[in-house]
């Protein structure tokens, strides 16, 4: 029941903040913020006192929806879902805060869309019915399209359309694969069901399994994104408003990673193992190619966007390494990348509000005026290049340590990615905050609201770097199910 409540809170808060937003902008913002904080509180509470000894699934909720077709409202939460939800509500609350001053037109509708995306994401992380999963998967898409298309920067329509088309194409393949799996299962067992637990261990011949697996995989690879399906990402991230970029990089990409861990690997273990070298190769290409693209960019947000391609390559590499260490690293990477990249987008957004440009060639020497923002950027730049003591290091080290057991050559190449990461990360600091200050910008350093956001992010990334054990223990419970 509590799982349904999480979704419903966001759903009704979305409607309410739209309605209130017509009269009062502040009211709309507060409703959005409070609903997300409430959800964050619920999830944290669940994490701290989750029922011990109930095994892998902490909560289940199941109501028949269309029994005739085997569709049910089936929600379930395990450690992985819990971690993803905590990340969702944390970054969601920060997204509301960061938009406090940035968004001034159609405020109510903005928060409606923001909460609706988050509602869809919550659904994706909780659903154990494939039909419902597809429903939520598409539900994330449309409000995101509006967020980019209405409140974005200059090329927002192009970016929004591109984002929509890519994700929709991927989603279509997934729909076909879901239906295929549904009928294959029915043909073999005479039971028509979309239920995840029933569909696990569906007997099917390897060729069929491969095609169905590919249908799912491609949808998730587009979302992840993996090279060569990544080209929607830089446009969408760059053109979206700050909150949109944070949600995209921090959460939407994670639904792709989550899909691989939750569906591709458990539903088609053999087919996934067959394709593992290719998938790992794609991951490594993403790490190096994304890093190289990031190095060349002059648009601050575009640069950060390409670093996401690079970092999500580690997720793909680790997910297909098929061992516990790499898998733990993948879950860590999903969280830490959400935090560190989200923070960098927030910094880019705060900077844009002050100097009205994203071109790093027009920046330089900003440390002089913005020492606090510069320090914050330094921390997250270091996180992004994998400095020990910050969460990303734990994630990337575990991924590499695990994938070394699976494939030496690819791991060596991925490790070289750390050098590329150093190159593009330090370029950010050098071009933006260091160097001579040509222009006389007169601008305030971080405001109180921004400081709260940044400090929250810094605390989390350091906590994950020094004491990642709670997260690792939480995600550890799924491993037996994923790694066979």
């Amino acid at each position, binding site marked *: 029941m509590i799982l349904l409540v999480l979704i419903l809170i966001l759903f009704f808060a979305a409607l309410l903040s739209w309605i209130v937003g017509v009269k009062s902008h502040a009211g709309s913002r507060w409703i959005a913020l409070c609903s997300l904080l409430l959800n964050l509180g619920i999830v944290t509470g669940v994490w701290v006192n989750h029922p011990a000894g109930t095994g892998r699934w902490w909560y289940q909720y199941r109501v028949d929806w269309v029994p005739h077709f085997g569709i049910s409202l089936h929600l379930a939460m395990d450690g992985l879902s819990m971690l993803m939800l905590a990340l969702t509500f944390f970054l969601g609350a920060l997204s509301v805060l960061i938009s406090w001053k940035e968004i001034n037109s159609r405020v109510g509708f903005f928060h409606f869309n923001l909460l609706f995306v988050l509602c869809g994401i919550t659904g994706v992380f909780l659903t154990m019915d494939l039909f419902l999963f597809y429903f939520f998967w598409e539900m994330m898409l449309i409000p995101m399209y509006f967020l980019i298309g209405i409140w974005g920067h200059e090329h927002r329509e192009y970016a929004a359309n*591109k984002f929509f088309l890519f994700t929709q194409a991927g989603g279509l393949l997934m729909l076909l694969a879901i239906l295929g799996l549904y009928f294959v299962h029915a043909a073999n067992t005479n039971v028509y069901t979309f239920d995840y637990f029933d569909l696990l261990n569906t007997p099917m011949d390897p060729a069929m399994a491969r095609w169905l697996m590919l249908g799912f995989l491609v949808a998730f690879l587009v979302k992840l994104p993996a*090279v*060569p399906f*990544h*080209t929607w990402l*830089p446009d969408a991230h760059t053109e979206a408003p700050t909150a949109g970029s944070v949600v995209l990089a921090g959460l939407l990409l994670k639904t792709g990673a989550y899909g691989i861990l939750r569906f591709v690997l458990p539903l088609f273990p053999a087919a996934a193992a067959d394709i593992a070298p290719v998938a790992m190769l794609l991951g490594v290409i993403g790490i190096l190619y994304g890093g*190289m*693209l990031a*190095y*060349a*960019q002059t648009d601050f947000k575009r640069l950060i966007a390409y670093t996401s391609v690079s970092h999500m390559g580690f997720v793909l590499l680790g997910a297909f390494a098929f*061992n*516990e*260490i790499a*898998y*733990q*690293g993948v879950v860590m990477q999903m969280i830490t990348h959400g935090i560190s990249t989200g923070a960098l987008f927030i910094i880019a957004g705060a900077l844009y509000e002050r100097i009205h440009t994203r071109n790093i060639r027009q920046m330089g*020497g900003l*440390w*002089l005026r913005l*020492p606090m923002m510069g*320090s914050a950027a330094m921390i997250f730049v*270091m996180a992004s290049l994998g*400095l*020990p*003591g910050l969460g990303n*290091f*734990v994630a990337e*080290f*575990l991924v*590499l*340590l*695990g994938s*070394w*057991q699976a494939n030496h050559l690819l*791991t*060596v190449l991925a*490790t*070289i990615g*750390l*050098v590329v990461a*150093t*190159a593009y990360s*330090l*370029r950010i*600091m*050098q071009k933006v*905050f*260091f*160097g*001579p*200050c040509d222009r006389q910008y007169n601008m305030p350093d971080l405001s109180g609201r921004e400081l709260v956001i940044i400090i929250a992010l810094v605390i989390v990334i350091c906590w994950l770097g*020094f*004491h*990642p*054990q709670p997260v*690792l223990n939480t995600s*550890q419970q799924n*491993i037996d199910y994923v790694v066979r």
Partner: protein
Amino acid sequence: MFPALIPLIPFVSALLLMLGWKRLSRIAVTVIGCGSIGLSAFVAVLIAIQFAAGGEQAIVQHAGNWVEAGGFKTGFDLRMDALSVVFVGVITIVGFLIHVYASGYMHEEPDYARFFACMNLFVGAMLTLVMADNLLLLYFGWEGVGLCSYLLIGFWYKDPANNYAARKAFIVTRVGDTAMAIALFMLFQFTGTLRIPEILQSSTHIWSKGDPVITWIALLLLGGAVGKSAQLPLQTWLPDAMAGPTPVSALIHAATMVTAGVYLIARTHTLFELAPDAQITTAVIGAITLVLAGFSALVQTDIKRVLAYSTVSQIGYMFLALGCGAWSAAVFHFVTHAFFKALLFMAAGAVIVALHHEQDLFKMGGLKKQLKGIYWVFLVGCASLAAIPFVTAGFYSKDQIIWLSLSAAGGHTAFWLAALLGALLTGMYTFRLFFLVFYGDLKTHVHHRPGNSMMIPLYILALLSTIAGFIELPHTLGHVTLFSNWLLPVLPAVSVLHDSVAMEWTSQALSAVLALSGIGVAYAWVVWRPKGMSDFLEMPALLWLRGFWSRGWDFDKLYNILLVYPFVYLSRMNKKDLIDKLYTSLAALMQWCHNVLARTQSGLLRWYILGVVLGAVAILSVLIWRIYI
């Protein structure tokens, strides 16, 4: 006493300075910045005494778990044993002196708190590095010192050249770190742990001598070491790192961080003993580096760059010693080098400040009378670096390496010759620098004399640079082995093959004569016959050679052509992402088809009739063709 306190105190003080950068007064910053290192040194001494009295192998403290996943487990485990005591002692004591000096040197700096925050962060990370009981924690310290090095080289961030140097240092050392990370993956794969004692213990069971796997591991660890310690082929970053403030050069780029590679190899010496090929590689790298850097030091015109190349060269000696299996000799040279090189850097800093931030050697001169105190400490430092016999610490530590490079089991005549050539070069470049600064005509007016906070650390280091040698004397001269005995529980004694007193005397005499003749050449070159020498040096062939040496044998150019330019060029070319072209051309193709088809809908009846007729003809043709042929 908890060993964890030693790195924790600098970390906490760094955090305090970062949070209170706006509110803390200068005095408060000085007290926190220097006091914390002093306190850390005090705790270190207490623990060292406790350790020495206790007679245990090591004091280990488990200060919490770090990462535990799928059979991989590491914690914040700190270890004090004979080797870490030596390193911790040098880091905290030399670090404290440099901090005190820095409080005078950086007095007028507006970003005073940021400077000390970074310096303390560095000391904390460095202490973690040398006290780590597992390789992941060592890696934590290893990367942490890299970060601080980056932050401090680029401390004066407004000058893009400094940022460039900082970035170069970080990226080049990261190349080595990557190799080291792969070594960690391999070690974990085979031993199932990253705890250093367990790895060393199980390594002899797992691998036989010369096993390719252990050779790879040792070579990859060596890759990490050469990156951090600025040895061939990753030495290019250190001379540029001199862009940082001088106390930084003294602390990070001379005394402590750059010797992390020496520490790593000494710490994992069991693995290197199992991999003779890797050990020989270490010695070869050391020998080549010490000679190449010696030549480069000879022709620099910037006072700090002379010292930087000299650091590269002296660490080359340490690597040579490690490669020959003379573990404690390498660590001994680390200790004396830390003293006299910190002294030289800080004395050079005092000269630079005195001359209003002038670093060009040829704009200095005649300072002997002007800067009396500096002159004497500088002389002590130079004498120790050049290894003047009997009275300097540098003589005893370097002489040991030179002799062992011939006589040790891993030694070779070629190593010995390289080490001797290095001794000659060291004498030459050291005293060329010394004479250029203090003799000749006064070229720049002295405008600022160093205060007590800068001079007292120099006197202490001058003392240490002299007496530190007497803890280990060759058996031709007194035979004291306090230092190597101390390290014996961790580092095995060197096995000497040619144990001949006559040969040892010859080697010592030769190295002493070479060092002194190096000084003689420098005297002739700079003081006695500067005119004749400069005519000789202006010869075109020599001019080119000098330029070549002064550019560090053009390694930068080589790497730029091989790696940097291609990477930058490729990434610039592909800025718009070739793969995206695929999708945009697909969209363009659709658009084109749309345009073509749209034009057929022209509203002109005759075109439609023509279309219908042509279609009918085509269909009929096909039918007829199908039926009759």
